């Protein structure tokens, strides 16, 4: 699987929130996107899935294995969502349907994309729950989101994103809403799963420490534009753009205050 974005531009109500962003993700590749809030990171991610909020329009090109997917009708895009590209969202508190059991929610992508029987779906859900290392998966499947902790809910979110075996996983600030200790666990889980499944990964964050622990290559976005791109190592050693310098300085300041942080 390869994904090529060229001059991706997103407009909302006359404002350009993503401005001519280009990048490539090859098979099994990992790409980080870092930027401050409002820099257009999430909009870039949502544009790839055709899930931009109402009133937003995207132009440019996004090619998935040489097929143009930008501007496809929603019906066509829906076939790609989940099965080719899976997505994990930032806020585990609101991203799960409060009135459906965890089991049904994990099963749903499987039911949509793979014609499996009821029992097969259930065993697949169990398998996925084990994959994301949820404790006591059997009983957990029949529970509701509000009965789970934030970390558990985010594991469910990851299970949902991986359920239909996509070749590309997009994670939009998946650890931001979590406690620091839980963050590390979830990052470790991402790292392990992406390796084991051979999935490509686009990881979005505003936190350099998080970025550093999971990807080797990243884009720095500022006000919708790519300010800098390259290896995370170079970025840390010699940030070229002012925004990258600011992010690196901010990260140093925090780690200097809290030397035990990852």
């Amino acid at each position, binding site marked *: 699987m390869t994904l090529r974005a060229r001059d991706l531009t997103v407009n*909302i*109500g006359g*404002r350009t*929130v993503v401005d001519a962003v280009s990048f490539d993700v090859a098979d099994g590749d990992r790409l980080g996107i870092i930027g401050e*809030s*409002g*820099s*257009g*990171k*999430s*909009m870039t991610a*949502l544009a790839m899935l055709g899930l931009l*909020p109402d009133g937003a329009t995207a132009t440019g090109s996004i090619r998935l294995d040489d097929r143009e997917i930008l501007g496809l009708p929603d019906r066509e895009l829906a076939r790609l969502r989940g099965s080719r590209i899976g997505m994990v*969202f*930032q*806020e585990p508190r609101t991203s799960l349907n409060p009135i459906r059991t965890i089991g049904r929610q994990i099963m749903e992508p499987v039911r949509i994309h793979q014609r499996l029987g009821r029992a097969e779906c259930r065993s697949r859900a169990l398998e996925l729950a084990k994959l994301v290392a949820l404790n006591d998966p059997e009983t957990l499947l029949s529970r509701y989101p509000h009965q789970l902790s934030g970390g558990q809910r985010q594991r469910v979110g990851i299970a949902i994103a991986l359920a239909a075996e996509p070749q590309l996983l997009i994670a*939009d*600030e998946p650890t*931001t809403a979590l406690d620091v200790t839980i963050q590390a666990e979830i990052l470790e889980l991402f790292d392990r799963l992406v390796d084991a499944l051979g999935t490509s990964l686009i990881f979005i964050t*505003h936190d350099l420490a998080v970025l550093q622990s999971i990807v080797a290559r990243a884009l720095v976005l500022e006000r*919708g534009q790519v300010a800098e791109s390259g290896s995370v190592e170079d970025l840390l050693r010699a940030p070229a753009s002012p925004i990258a310098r600011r992010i690196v300085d901010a990260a140093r300041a925090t780690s200097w205050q809290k030397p035990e942080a990852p």
Partner: protein
Amino acid sequence: MTTTVPIVRQRGWARTFIRNPAGVFGLVTTVALVSCALLSIVWTPYDPVHTDVLSKWHPPSSAHLLGTDNIGRDIFSVLLAGSRVTLQVAVGSALVAAVVGVVFAALGSLTARWFREIIAVLIDILIAFPTLLIAMMLASALGGSIMVVIVAVGISFGVNVGRVSRPEIRRVSRSEFVTAGIAAGLGPVRNLTRHTLPNVAPVFIVQLSWCMAVAVLAETGLSYLGYGAPVSTPSWGRVLAELQSYIGIHPLSVVWPGLAITITVLGFNLLGDGLRDATDPRLGRPEVITA
């Protein structure tokens, strides 16, 4: 998600309101209603209560803009005069609702905890009384009149105003400037009138525009049933009732009063919506029954 939060420039509520065409429509119809009511005091093309059997059922013409009715009254003049009743009912109901609302909201937010809970339960019970039933109860004891409509709508909508503004009053009355007022020696009542009410005013004004819409509908319904405006008064609801028997022969005649009512109600509703959107978009339209 940390998406781009669109930057909304802070504008005054009046400017936000003016940019909303629906709200402006509401304002225009409200002003038009008031103008018609004022105009009808000094001038109507014909005497709205003058009956003339010889000139009944004139079709619309330059002499009779909307034609004449079954007893030869000029429909345009009747409607113009009827706007006065409509305005009376709307404003009267809003005033009663404001008083009832303030009382309920104050009792339900500023008193002892056990008393607040009683008020909350009472509000839930009173909400279950449809406006029309309250009016019919009053009418069966006192006979029908415009006053009955005003009191019934005022009470039933006032309860709703109380329910909606109760949390708002609690929020405001706990805020710092009110606490400061208490510290400065203001009594609870003065504090209410001086600090709390002005801050809850937007909620009230929005609610009261919706109340006026309900009042106009209630007047129509009750006058139609014969418990609103008395027979001799030119009122929109009464005109509808009187022309009902002729809809088979002169269908156009019922179109005008109905249109006048609908536009007025729509106007008050949109005025309320516009004010709500301009002052506090969190508030929803009340779940009050349209009478």
